[in-house]
């Protein structure tokens, strides 16, 4: 086959033309490279004029392939592809050589730079001639959306979509939506009460005609692809018939079994065996906790059943499954709090009056175990002094190297609430103060004025071992006051540990389930850290809120809304193009060895029992090419990255050792050429 290749060398002003002799590269390409019909250099190829040059040549010179040597394909591949397709040249018949990022900007010597540029152009020219036309496949988008997680981010996303008129399935693991925000008392920096701003949104979700809430439920499995995901949800047995229950709460009242509430009250308060995490819970239906229910333990009791006016109790209930089909998925699975017992020198779990940030939220909360009284573990005594410790498990290579982003502000909030409610002296021990959003610095200033004490120094230890007079019976916080350069011991009545935000204990499995990867620290990875923060590598799956990284309420809400907007875009368009860069199996060559089958993390490869060959579902394939490389029979080929194309590029790049004919002096011709 003879292709007519057009080669275009971009000057990028002097960015390339400075260190690289662009005219020479063009001349050389024209004279030495097979298939090159013409080679030009131009000041700015990406400019409309530059694009027109290419388009003119396609029209007048009948180019069948185009090579642009300019910047990184990550910048302008799309530009040149569409320029060509406008002239009827399939976009996948173009190729770029990154002679700016990989040559002109990183090479000292002009001669060497020019030489390297030539080789890269040769590689592109060779490769492009073997490239073939590819057509993206177009699939319809199911307008229904799955939102996983009913915290503030998930709530925001759901309402945005529902209000726009699209149907949403919201799956929440706990008996009620609301997430961590529902546990909080006030929110910084405005100090409006969390419940006051959250509960209306919660009930909106509960009542919204476009939202189907699946609470006390978890996603079992996900299959399918963007536009059409098949999702199986397991609704855990509530032992309450939701259709019959009026949420009157008599069952809770009558239940004789009281247990420590480890979840909503973080171990500080009690609940019944049949319970609703908190009064404003959505949905209103309670849950019977099988683990602690007397009937499930001993086979007798059923007090709730006796008193239920609508016969809504059903001890025979079992887990049920719901199968959904959705076009897009938004994951808002949130965070877990760091286990503060991992740092014994801070005394949590041993010293009664050391509390965590979440526990302190419950203490402040009027609906909490102490009706909002900030008291010591004895439940009555008000602390006269409180120490707040920052960065517990954060900014610490022994636990989490990252900054948890919200602690500095909660410290300020706690300081204000504590001084307001108890008049206690409050000390904050910080490494760096990071109040970095709108009106946050002002809040810091306010607390300084209100007389909160700030000691710059990471706490070394919290102990009850009195050493100096005045320390007896107190908890002593020992730290270096780094602004003075001296060790200090501050005796206090109460200590609050600002535990780190950490990924959910099961984030990794969840990620695998949805085809979302997580970074080393366990947070879900966005498609691009700056320019694509809520999308993921799996088309149609978006992330919002703290499952992507530590963030506060405003940021979580922003991401929830952003994810919803992205989904609306998909739905509005109605169809989605699936990249043609996928792998496919040539049945004739497939030996049915099935090695490729378990290589694919996206389950795109299935084994066809009848034909005894493996088959790749193009819609599921993400085009990584691992299976292509793994196939011992060379039966799998990866579109746009075929062995031949890569070998050709290789030969071009090694033009100076191989020479033009592709044969090398050093070895007999291709030893391992695929059969």
């Amino acid at each position: 086959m003879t292709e007519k290749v057009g080669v275009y060398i971009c000057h990028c002003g002097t960015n390339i033309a400075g260190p690289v002799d662009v005219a020479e590269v063009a001349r050389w390409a024209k004279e030495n490279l097979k298939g090159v019909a013409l080679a030009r250099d131009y000041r700015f190829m990406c400019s409309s004029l530059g694009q027109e040059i290419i388009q003119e040549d396609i029209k007048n010179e009948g180019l069948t392939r185009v090579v642009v040597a300019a910047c990184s394909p990550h910048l302008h591949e799309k530009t040149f592809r569409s320029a060509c397709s406008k002239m009827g040249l399939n976009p996948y018949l173009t190729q770029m050589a990154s002679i700016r990022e990989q040559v002109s900007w990183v090479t000292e010597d002009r001669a060497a730079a020019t030489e390297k540029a030539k080789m890269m152009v040769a590689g592109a020219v060779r490769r492009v001639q073997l490239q073939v036309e590819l057509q993206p496949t177009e699939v319809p988008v199911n307008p229904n959306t799955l939102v996983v997680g009913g915290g503030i981010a998930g709530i925001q996303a759901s309402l945005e979509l529902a209000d726009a008129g699209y149907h949403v399935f919201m799956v929440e693991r706990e008996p009620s939506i609301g997430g961590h925000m529902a546990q909080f008392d006030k929110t910084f920096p405005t100090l409006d009460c969390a419940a006051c701003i959250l509960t209306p949104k919660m009930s909106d979700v509960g009542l919204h005609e476009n939202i189907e809430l699946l609470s006390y439920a978890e996603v079992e499995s996900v299959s399918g692809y963007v536009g059409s995901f098949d999702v199986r949800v397991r609704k855990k047995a509530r032992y309450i018939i939701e259709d019959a229950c009026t949420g009157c709460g008599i069952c809770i009242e009558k239940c004789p079994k009281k247990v420590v509430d480890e979840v909503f009250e973080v171990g500080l308060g009690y609940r019944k065996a049949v319970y609703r995490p908190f009064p404003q819970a959505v949905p209103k239906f309670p849950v019977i906790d099988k683990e602690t229910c007397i009937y499930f333990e001993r086979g007798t009791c059923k007090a709730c059943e006796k008193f239920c006016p609508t016969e809504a109790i059903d001890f025979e209930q079992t887990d049920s499954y719901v199968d959904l089909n959705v076009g897009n998925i938004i994951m808002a699975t949130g965070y877990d709090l760091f286990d503060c017992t991992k740092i014994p020198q801070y005394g949590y779990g041993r010293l009664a009056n050391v509390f965590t940030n979440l526990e302190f939220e419950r203490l402040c909360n009027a609906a909490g175990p102490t009706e909002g009284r900030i008291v010591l573990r004895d439940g009555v005594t008000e602390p006269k002094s409180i120490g707040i410790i920052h960065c517990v498990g954060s900014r610490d290579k022994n636990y989490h190297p990252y900054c948890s982003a919200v602690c500095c502000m909660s410290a300020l909030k706690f300081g204000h609430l504590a001084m307001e409610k108890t008049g206690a002296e409050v000390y904050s021990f910080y490494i760096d103060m990071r109040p970095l959003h709108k009106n946050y610095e002002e809040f810091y200033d306010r607390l300084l004025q209100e007389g909160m004490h700030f000691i710059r120094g990471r706490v070394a230890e919290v102990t009850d071992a009195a050493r100096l007079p005045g320390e007896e019976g107190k908890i002593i916080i020992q730290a270096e006051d780094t602004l003075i350069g001296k060790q200090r011991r501050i005796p206090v009545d109460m200590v609050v540990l600002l535990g780190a935000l950490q990924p959910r204990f099961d984030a990794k499995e969840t990620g695998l389930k949805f085809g979302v990867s997580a970074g080393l620290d366990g947070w879900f990875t966005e498609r691009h850290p700056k320019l694509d923060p809520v999308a993921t590598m799996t088309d149609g799956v978006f992330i919002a809120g703290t499952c992507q990284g530590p963030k506060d309420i405003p940021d979580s809400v922003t991401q929830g809304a952003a994810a919803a907007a992205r989904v609306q875009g998909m739905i509005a368009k109605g169809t989605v193009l699936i990249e043609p860069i996928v792998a496919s199996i040539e049945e004739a060559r497939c030996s049915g060895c099935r090695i490729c089958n378990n290589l694919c993390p996206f389950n795109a490869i299935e084994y066809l029992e009848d034909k005894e060959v493996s088959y790749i579902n193009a819609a599921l394939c993400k085009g990584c090419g691992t299976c292509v490389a793994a196939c011992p029979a060379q039966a799998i080929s990866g579109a746009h990255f075929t062995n031949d194309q890569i070998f050709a590029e290789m030969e071009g790049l090694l033009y100076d050792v191989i020479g033009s004919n592709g044969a090398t002096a050093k070895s007999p011709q291709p030893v391992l050429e695929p059969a």
Partner: protein
Amino acid sequence: MRYGYYPGCSLTNAARPYEISTRAIAGELGLAFDEVEDWNCCGATEYMSLNKTAAYALIGRNLALAAQSGMRELVAPCSACYLNLRKTDHYMKKYKPLGKVTNQALAAGGLHYEPGSLVVRHLLDVIVKDVGYDAISAKVTRPLTGLRVAPYYGCLIVRPDFNGGSSEDTEYPTHLDHLMEALGAEVVDFPLKTHCCGGHMTQISADTAYELIRRLLQNAAEYQADLLVTLCPMCQLNLDAYQSQVNRHFGTDFNLPILYFTQMIGLAMGLEPKELAIGQEIVSAASALRKIGTVEEIEETAQARRKRDDKSLPMPRIREG
């Protein structure tokens, strides 16, 4: 169970009671120790302050001698020796140039040490893990009932935990606690269990050292400990021999006997105090030990039901491990 054994200088001098009691209980516990032939000082905390390479070579000689004689596990009862041996083995592996230069030095003495060929362990670790609490409590004939014991680990047995070798927390270890419980003693939750005894400061800046010793004695006293159990010669020396100095310095009247955990094990197994070199401590343990055997009322520990008017908040659960 046979082990290579590195007593270290202290056990031949100030810590003789540690050596004697260890030997005394070893047989009963089924432990056999082969002493490293012609071992030398580990350099304590001093040698490193003058010469780095020489310090590692000094310790390297012991490792080389032990490995050469076919030992696989090397047991050190002294925490400082334990740390130095373990640290050198670890650093020689982790920092290749250091390992190289150390072996170059050893070569001058016709020796070589391949890092990783020895597992360095502390005596406590061997007794707790290889013998085990159950096996030990099974041998108890004279339970330490009613004796209030403050378990004191000091620093170097738990810190730093090179390559996560020990299963103990660097801040809040529990092996010695559980061991003393196994012997029937009443163990106090000693907050300063891993704090410093003053180390060599007794020699360099007595005032500094006395203050550190005072903290430990005062805290143990506040917890009404009858005696303090240790596993490190330096800790024992500072707390025992310098106790009178501390009293003189601060005008206090602490009278807290400091014994080695090996002596406690021996006592519980019914050995005579003399066999365990009890009596060689400066602060006599005699009065404290009179308690042993006398059966005290076991407290009613059954969880009382929560009273209606009880407003107190539940304590957080600490997950084990």
